[in-house]
């Protein structure tokens, strides 16, 4: 299998401001030497406690944030030090699904307009085919009857699916999704995850940041467990139970120690 992501020794530190303008800033290490490989067609989950560096890693992979050290290669091209002008032409291949769907959508655009604009601007689809292609995609995501709705008229699950539609319209090689199911109830979590993974091209890869290990166990080929900016376990769900205590606690928080 060909590689889509190869990241080596990623480091990233932040200055976190204190509570008040006069409080001293603290230095937080979000990534402390992370390696990550993702093959074509692979679904890799990033899990860990809050503040373990998951979101930072996701953003650094796509160059939405620059690492302080280390390298990111996407499809064998060194990505992290490319100027944005060079990256832009390739960005449609590598897509990001943000955590907060509502803030990512244009409040004045309908569902259909979101997809049509993406097809026109980023996918260079001829005008005559934009509408038809958008309708096909919306149909597959169960959004056809909501095509003329505005984001605020949609439910949380529908808003997520619009962000997915926009990304899937580009037929990306890599999708990095930051908690695409947070805040949804279990049925809708499964539905949104299925909509994302089921509509990717066959050899496209997905990096999934999530707290929802139940869902991940079924769909991810590998689960990368981060703790304080380091990878502490790479778990293959099909190969059996995870080894590390933290991974087990994340998988079933109620199983260790007695119940309350």
């Amino acid at each position, binding site marked *: 299998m060909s590689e889509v992501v190869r990241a080596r020794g990623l480091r990233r530190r932040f200055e976190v401001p204190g509570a008040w303008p006069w409080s001293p800033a603290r230095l937080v290490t979000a990534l402390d030497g992370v390696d990550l490989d993702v093959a074509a067609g692979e679904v890799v989950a990033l899990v860990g*406690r809050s503040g373990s560096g998951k979101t930072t890693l996701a953003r650094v992979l796509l160059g939405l944030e620059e690492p302080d050290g280390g390298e990111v290669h996407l499809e064998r091209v060194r990505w992290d030090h490319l100027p944005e002008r060079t990256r832009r032409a390739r960005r449609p291949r590598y897509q990001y699904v943000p955590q907060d769907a509502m803030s990512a959508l244009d409040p004045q655009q309908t569902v259909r307009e979101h997809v049509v604009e993406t097809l026109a601007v980023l996918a260079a689809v001829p005008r005559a085919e934009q509408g038809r292609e958008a309708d096909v995609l919306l149909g597959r995501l169960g959004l056809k009857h909501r095509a003329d709705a505005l984001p605020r008229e949609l439910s949380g699950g529908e808003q997520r699916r619009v962000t997915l539609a926009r990304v899937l319209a580009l037929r990306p090689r890599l999708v990095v999704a930051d908690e695409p199911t947070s805040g949804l109830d*279990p049925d809708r979590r499964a539905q949104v995850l299925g909509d994302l993974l089921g509509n990717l091209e066959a050899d496209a890869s997905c990096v999934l940041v999530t707290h929802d290990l139940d869902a991940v166990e079924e769909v991810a080929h590998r689960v990368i467990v981060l703790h304080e900016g380091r990878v502490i376990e790479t778990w293959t769900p099909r190969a059996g139970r995870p080894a590390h205590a933290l991974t087990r606690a*994340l998988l079933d928080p109620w199983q260790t120690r007695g119940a*309350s």
Partner: protein
Amino acid sequence: MSLVASLRGLTVVAGGRTLVRGVDLEVVAGRVTALAGPSGAGKSVTARACLGVVEVEPGVTEGSLRFPPLGDQDWLAPPRAAGELRARFAPLRGSYLAYAPQSAASALNPGRTIGRQLELAVGRRAPAPDRAQVVALVRDGLAEVGLPEEAARALPGELSGGQCQRAALAVAVAAAPRVLFADEPETGLDPVLRRQVVELLVEVGRRHACGIVLITHHADTVARVADDVVRLVPIDPEAS
């Protein structure tokens, strides 16, 4: 078994849509009642009706709500205009009825110290505690949720998110409420933190002999902590 809240046949209509229909909910002191169901099933609406804060007209159209320790009054008796219910419940909120918010950071007053906010909440107790009692209750309240005494002098912005959540819980139970509502306290937390938050909530609520109403999406939480489960289903199938 002492019943602290008894809701019968709650129906709420807003904007021409029926949000909940015929919901019954019994809350017993020291027990956890999970309010479960998918999004749009009316979990939050039910809790808000019990707190007298259904804003949209016509709001509550049917149902009765009794708090047996306070007598046989039906708190949802007509007139049920939103402003009317709000005023009627005002003396109960923050004393008999407590609400542990989903987002602690936005529920705490950013300009007041944690200690001062606890003092104000403690002052809602009846009979009103004297100065020495207030000091003791504030100290105990912080210790109970695992915050150090210095937290009393901190402003919410100086505490971490987890500390704020503990402080908000301390404020919620400070007035010795009999019914404690928690609306999805776990949303967006990592699984380990999720368990800690729920365990603390249940432990603190039980110690104060509150009847706890826990709104949650998580089946594992329901299985682990709930004594009773009220499961709601969406009325309008097209809302997905």
